[in-house]
């Protein structure tokens, strides 16, 4: 069962089911429109803005990772450079005659320009060598950013004001919600273009070169140039994401370029699933939520993120999208209902068990690192003394019980899974 399979193949001839082709896009557009009406607080809008920017970045990153089989460790620089470029434009006088909505194009062009330069020598080989080069170049540019203060602003970065642009139909983009709709528009445009790219000759050959570069060469294609064009295209959309970042936060710093940011986007994309177009979208949304919500609850959220990442690589290399799509054959056979009870019986104890382990981790951390005398901690709305034995007994007991129940119910889940995949049904 290959997890890295490309989008479920549809017949190449124009399908009569327009609904299937355009459906998801229309639904997304509608969702984007109404979400801020549902979640109206400014904090929610801020989170959503961050989410959509990350989605664009992740989709652009997956043009290389998932579509092209190229692992880049230093990709944040293309987003960062796009952001810095737009920031400078916002600080120039000429900005008064440029409507803000078209600014991302410049970000895209800058990102693309940098990618054209770097790609010239980095795309000669794929695989490990490419990854190494991308790491080195990424570090180089990030390190240069503190030296070249003129462009990168040194430690404080560069800031600007997005409201000085030419008003767009009366809108000056003072309000967060206005920026939201701008970002949403660019999200739809970028995602749409990237999707279409995957359906063009170059997009198809990118897949082919990923799977079998030698064969692609014997079909008349230079693997090296296919990789180069994908790299440049990816740089373009990264630049757009960077521009939107600049517009949204009105400040761009070295942090946007560094290896940590490159690592995050790798994590996000891989978590979502590199084998499907919508994978990075899920990954970006899930991760942004995780990051914002979880980081408020605990200092240790980075550990959980790390464990989640490693577990995904080891057990679910197809990511969230892969796990979801595994259910498609079952749903097609109409056997979805068979799974409901086994899932409840196995997954809920598993969830409780995992939460129990998290509690233990939190408690251990508290004991080890809290200031002396401070014994009180709060977990799940309960305040207790982390140094006393009772909470420990309770948590360990609950966790052990949960995992035991889970283990008892797991065989049933596995068996039902096999049955559900069987065309003859339960």
């Amino acid at each position, binding site marked *: 069962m290959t997890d890295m399979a490309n989008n479920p193949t549809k017949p190449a001839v124009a399908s009569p089911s327009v609904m299937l082709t355009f459906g998801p896009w229309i639904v997304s557009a509608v969702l984007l429109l109404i979400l801020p009406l549902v979640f109206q607080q400014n904090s929610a809008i801020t989170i959503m803005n961050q989410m959509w920017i990350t989605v664009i970045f992740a989709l652009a990153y997956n043009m290389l990772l998932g579509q092209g089989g190229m*692992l880049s460790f230093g990709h944040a620089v293309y987003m960062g450079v796009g952001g810095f470029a737009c920031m400078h434009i916002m600080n120039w006088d000429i900005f008064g005659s440029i409507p803000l909505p078209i600014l991302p194009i410049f970000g895209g062009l800058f990102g693309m320009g940098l990618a054209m330069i770097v790609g010239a*020598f980095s795309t000669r080989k794929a*695989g*490990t*060598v490419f990854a190494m080069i991308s790491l*080195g170049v990424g570090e180089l540019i990030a390190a240069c950013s503190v030296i070249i203060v*003129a462009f990168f602003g040194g430690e404080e970065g560069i800031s600007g004001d997005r409201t000085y642009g030419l008003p767009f139909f009366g809108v000056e983009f003072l309000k967060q919600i206005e920026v939201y709709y701008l970002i949403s528009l660019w999200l739809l445009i970028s995602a749409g273009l990237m999707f279409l790219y995957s359906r063009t000759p170059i997009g198809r050959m990118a897949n082919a070169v990923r799977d079998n570069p030698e064969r692609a060469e014997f079909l008349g294609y230079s693997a090296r140039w296919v990789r180069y064009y994908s790299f440049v295209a990816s740089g373009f959309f990264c630049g757009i994401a960077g521009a939107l970042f600049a517009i949204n936060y009105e400040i761009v710093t070295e942090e946007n370029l560094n290896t940590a940011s490159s690592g995050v986007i790798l994590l996000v994309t891989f978590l979502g699933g590199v084998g499907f177009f919508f994978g990075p979208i899920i990954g970006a949304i899930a991760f942004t939520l995780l990051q914002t919500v979880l980081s408020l609850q605990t200092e240790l959220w980075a550990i959980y993120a790390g464990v989640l990442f490693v577990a995904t690589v080891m057990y679910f290399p197809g990511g969230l999208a892969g796990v979801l799509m595994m259910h498609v054959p079952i749903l097609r056979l109409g056997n979805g209902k068979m799974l409901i009870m086994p899932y409840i019986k196995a997954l809920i104890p598993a969830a409780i068990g995992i939460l129990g382990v998290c509690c233990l*981790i939190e408690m251990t951390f508290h004991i080890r*690192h809290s200031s002396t005398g401070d014994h009180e901690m709060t977990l799940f709305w309960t305040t207790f003394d982390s140094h006393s034995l009772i909470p420990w007994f309770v948590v360990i007991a609950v966790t052990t019980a949960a995992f035991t129940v889970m283990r008892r119910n797991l065989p049933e889940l596995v068996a039902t899974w096999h049955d559900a995949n069987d065309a003859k049904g339960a």
Partner: protein
Amino acid sequence: MDLILVNLIDGLVTGLLLFMLSAGLTLIFSMMGVLNFAHASFYMLGAYFAYSISLAVGFWMGLLIAPLIVGVMGAGVERYGLRRVHQYGHVPELIFTFGLALLIEELVQFIWGKNQMAYEIPEVLNFTAFSIAGNSIPAFKIFMIFISISIFIGLLYVLTKTRIGMIIQAALSYPRTVEALGHNVPLIFMGVFGVGTALAGVAGVIAGPVLGTFPGMAFVLGSIVFVTIVIGGLGSLWGALVASLLIGWITTFAKSYNIAMSDILQGVGLSMPENMDDSIWRDLWTVTSPQIADILPYILMVLILIFRPYGLLGNRDA
């Protein structure tokens, strides 16, 4: 002249340290095709374990035990982690080691906290070995050089003169053939991985007191190590040595001699812009060699990749 000697020694220390890390990394790469992103993390673990052990039973026990623990952990990672991910391909392998690096950094902060640890040079080595032109050379640095060189010689001996070394060398290039001859290649892989990470651990033990023991140490050194093996040539042990020493000396000399870019540019005949604050080239004019010392390896790597992509001593197909 004396300053040159001081810098030579300092650069040698840095270079040999770098070599201990890059040797293990390049060996692992040439054998398993895996670039272990978490390699520098084992270096960090070595330092931290040695620190904790040294608090209890002293530095020397730390030097002995910490690398062993790290090596065992490394072997475990290979056996239970990498071997599993191997079936998915090279890219997932890289991503796995990357995730591992993140995780180890978080775990270190979890156990030891975010602050730098007070990992001290052992009393018996805490004196000045000799002085050159007023600069004192600590005995510990001499000790570091001594340890690094002995390990290198030991490694060379094992690899070229012993039976197990020859089997390893064969397994490096033709694992399946070696397996067909009856050798337990998975065990060899596990062993080489373990030894490679143990080496990194040793580097951590001796570098910890000097370079500082803090959660970011893996990250700081990590990317330089990759740069080193790319420059030296992926899979080439000698290349790793040459590149490590080269980088060690270049960065040390750049930091100690304050060469200003403005002098170079003026020497070539360009004139300094009058209003520095407005000029877009102001950064280029004001930069000095200590500032760019740390990025010189990256520049070198990019140049090598453009003009000699297989590294200084690497094979053409790397």
